[in-house]
């Protein structure tokens, strides 16, 4: 396969260069506008700044390169991986590259969101083009100085060599390069020749992290800053009636108590005083909206699943007919609870609302929308908002919602002080934007020893699966296939949680397939291989997953996990899934320890195209799997009269080291463009674990968390 790609720009305007007054060269570009045709960038190069470009590279006259990474870092590694793409094509030594978080530009950012495992997939081509363009300009400058043709020059790690063996460094020619025109034609490297991409690069913030330097939103401080803690309604559906702040005001360090909406903000000179002051508030609440409980949701969701009110999302053939003529029908309903995100760094944000500008600093996955929301809330112009992103102590979807930024801004606006709003863990878990609880009913028909029909019905709180999902596997594999969904409304706030919908749907479907394989008397791997063969025979443009790549990960995982040949006492469960453009197969090995299943090992095969940063990729893959196991097994969360069942880690169980299996990761070798890894390894693991538990115990688990389900089953047996 070839090889290095020659690219001719017809959108040169996405990139601008200029000479720096103090020496060196600046290359500004608008990363994601580069992919669209309506890029509007200023022509006047003297105005090159953050307001025109969302990312840029600075090359100093010593040849050192600073890359401003435009996407928010939530732990998924883009702050390392995205600059790797630039550095690769720029052909500099990674040691000479310094990475800094870019600032928000609300006008020109088109995709500065961390979510959906899209950062790398979307930036792969444009970032490489930027790096290659800069390299070409530097080479052109050197060639001009030597009076030779640029094509006769070679570059290695920032050193340009001509045919005679003479050398110039990037630093030597950067001044001249800055004055050159942007080249129309550039050459991208053949991925085979990558020296940075594909090689493990450590986290760029590692030194700061291991020595405890300020990095996160919670660490940010400003002159005169005060701390705020907010009392919010104790239950969804309640509003504030009256309150008494006498005891709060007596707390040393408390300076202000501010009622805003149904909330009360306590402002103090230190975090502890603000938290203590909040605890001392005496508030009366009244029920103004329904007090909802999980038991009621469950009844409504089941009723919805059994009604005719679901909307058809995809329909192939006629499942009803397939079911009517079947030899056997298998039906199961799978259930999942609400989930809080529980980022280790609780929600927090700094706001300083001044007459001239609104300064916002902190951890947020959606800087653009949040800045706009603050401007709207305070009736100010968006251009007056200056939002600076910090590293985030986890996101998992929670930091897509900027509700806490609005609170911080409002408190600063009211007090006219710079304010750092800090959530306690209890605030974080009770004022959540939860993964909605959901139920999936799966029905399949078997006739003459073959699978003939498949029906997936979804009932979910406040939301439904996004449009791509009905086209995921097994769509395309069966003549009679139908997906339906419906929702019930709730006043509990819900939103995205790592791998939305698929985080549980994959558990349901891949558990169901285990049962189907058993009913058919077929091995799991063989069943999937057959079904995927059918997809290959009937190509369908709506189907985005690749049957070949799914078969590839499946066959590979069977091999590396020694599928079907587990040693005595080890029980294996398999799961294979496609989401977020990545194909993944996983096998969980469990043993029984005193009657309790323990996951000892997970084998995982991932096809994500070219692996940009193997170290970072490995972290995402293993983290996704362990996060998935933890929530599948332990996450017990419900509501009673609008109040969450857990408020902190004493009652809410997150996975800890003693419960973690070792994870054996393999990549499919590929020259395909890279796809994201922040999410795709999480969804399949729940079913791999459940299927292994079935083999060990004979119990088909359908209701998460599974640890609780196992205990309940045990109690039933003991009577």
């Amino acid at each position: 396969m070839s090889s290095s790609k020659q690219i001719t720009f017809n959108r040169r305007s996405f990139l601008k260069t200029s000479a720096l007054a103090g020496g060196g060269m600046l290359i500004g570009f608008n990363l994601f506008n580069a992919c669209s045709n309506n890029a509007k960038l200023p022509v006047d190069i003297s105005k090159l700044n953050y307001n025109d470009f969302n990312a840029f590279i600075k090359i100093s006259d010593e040849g050192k390169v600073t890359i401003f990474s435009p996407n928010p870092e939530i732990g998924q590694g883009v702050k390392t991986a995205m600059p790797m793409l630039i550095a690769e094509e720029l052909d500099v030594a990674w040691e000479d590259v310094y990475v800094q978080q870019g600032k928000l530009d609300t006008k020109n950012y088109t995709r500065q969101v961390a979510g959906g495992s899209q950062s790398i997939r979307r930036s792969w081509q444009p970032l490489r083009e930027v790096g290659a363009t800069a390299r070409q300009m530097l080479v052109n400058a050197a060639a001009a100085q030597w009076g030779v043709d640029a094509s006769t020059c070679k570059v290695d790690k920032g050193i340009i060599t001509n045919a005679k063996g003479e050398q110039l460094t990037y630093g030597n020619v950067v001044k001249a390069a800055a004055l050159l025109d942007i080249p129309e034609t550039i050459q991208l490297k053949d991925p085979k020749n990558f020296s940075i991409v594909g090689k493990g690069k450590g986290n760029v913030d590692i030194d700061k992290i291991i020595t405890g330097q300020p990095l996160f939103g919670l660490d940010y401080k400003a002159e005169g800053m005060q701390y705020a803690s907010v009392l919010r309604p104790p239950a969804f559906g309640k509003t504030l009636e009256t309150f008494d702040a006498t005891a709060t005001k007596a707390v040393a360090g408390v300076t202000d108590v501010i009622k805003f909406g149904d909330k009360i903000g306590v402002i103090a000179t230190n975090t502890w005083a603000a938290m203590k002051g909040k605890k001392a508030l005496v508030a009366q609440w009244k029920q103004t909206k329904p007090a909802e409980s999980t038991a009621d949701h469950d009844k409504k969701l089941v009723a919805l699943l059994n009604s005719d009110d679901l909307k058809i999302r995809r329909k192939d053939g006629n499942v009803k007919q397939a079911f009517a003529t079947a030899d056997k029908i298998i039906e199961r309903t799978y259930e999942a609870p609400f989930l809080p995100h529980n980022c280790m760094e609780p929600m927090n944000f700094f706001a300083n609302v001044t007459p001239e500008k609104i300064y916002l600093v902190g951890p947020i996955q959606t800087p653009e929308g949040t800045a706009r929301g603050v401007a709207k809330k305070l009736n100010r112009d968006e251009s007056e908002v200056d939002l600076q992103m910090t590293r985030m102590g986890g996101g998992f979807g929670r930091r897509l919602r900027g509700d806490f930024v609005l609170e911080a801004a409002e408190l600063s606006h009211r007090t006219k002080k710079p304010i750092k709003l800090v959530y306690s863990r209890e605030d974080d878990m009770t004022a959540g934007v939860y993964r909605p609880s959901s139920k999936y009913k799966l029905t399949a028909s078997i006739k003459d020893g073959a699978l003939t029909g498949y029906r997936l019905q979804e009932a979910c709180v406040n939301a439904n699966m996004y449009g791509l999902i009905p086209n995921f596997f097994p769509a395309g594999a069966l003549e009679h296939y139908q997906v339906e969904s419906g929702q019930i409304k709730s006043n509990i706030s819900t939103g995205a949680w790592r791998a939305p919908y698929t985080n549980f749907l994959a558990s349901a479907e891949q558990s169901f397939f285990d049962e189907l394989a058993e009913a058919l008397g077929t091995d799991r791997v063989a069943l999937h291989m057959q079904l995927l063969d059918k997809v290959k025979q009937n190509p369908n443009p709506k189907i985005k997953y690749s049957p070949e790549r799914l078969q590839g990960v499946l066959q590979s995982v069977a091999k590396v996990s020694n599928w079907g040949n587990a040693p005595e006492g080890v029980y294996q469960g398999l799961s294979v899934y496609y989401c977020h453009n990545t194909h993944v197969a996983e096998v969980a090995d469990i043993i029984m320890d005193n009657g309790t299943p323990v996951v000892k090992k997970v084998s995982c095969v991932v096809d994500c195209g070219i692996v940009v940063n193997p170290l970072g990729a490995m972290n995402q893959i293993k983290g996704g799997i362990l996060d998935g196991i933890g929530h599948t097994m332990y996450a017990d969360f419900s509501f009673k009269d609008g109040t969450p069942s857990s408020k902190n880690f004493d009652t809410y169980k997150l996975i800890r080291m003693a419960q973690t299996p070792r994870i054996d990761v393999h990549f499919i070798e590929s020259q395909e463009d890279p796809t994201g890894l922040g999410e795709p390894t999480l969804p399949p693991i729940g079913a791999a674990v459940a299927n292994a538990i079935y083999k060990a115990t004979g119990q088909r688990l359908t209701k998460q968390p599974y640890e609780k389900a196992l205990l309940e089953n045990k109690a039933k047996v003991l009577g």
Partner: protein
Amino acid sequence: MLKIEVMPTYNLKINGKSHTVNADEDTPLLWVLRDQLDLVGTKFGCGIGQCGACTIHVDGHATRSCLTQISEAETMEITTIEGLSKTGEHPVQQAWKTIDVPQCGYCQSGQIMTAAAFLKSNTNPSNEAIRTAMNGNICRCASYNSIEDAVKLASEQINNPQKA
């Protein structure tokens, strides 16, 4: 209304240096470190001693700073992540870097402090012992495999510095 606030004074010994602070007697050491002394490497995670993000060393032992009141801290020899080594050269910190442990990184100073104290008491731990010792520290990104490997690597480097 003017509030007259007289807060007690405490003398603390942190990272080998003396500090004098004024704080309410029930203030957790965590917030004194973070808000008053700018030692923000010690993190707030849960406030009830469940997650370990706020782990510091008190007289060499891993201790939750969120549960340590300032009024009991005067007699303590306190070490925070900032004082574990001068520039990050402690074998545990170096192992964290070699393995590239962090994802979001927020819990890692607590993890490092727990591991460093543990390796003083058990210089040649089994993986089982590591898993037990580290079980009090939550990593929400679930970088547990890497943490386990890094603690093991650090113990090897402590035992055989030449090799490192």
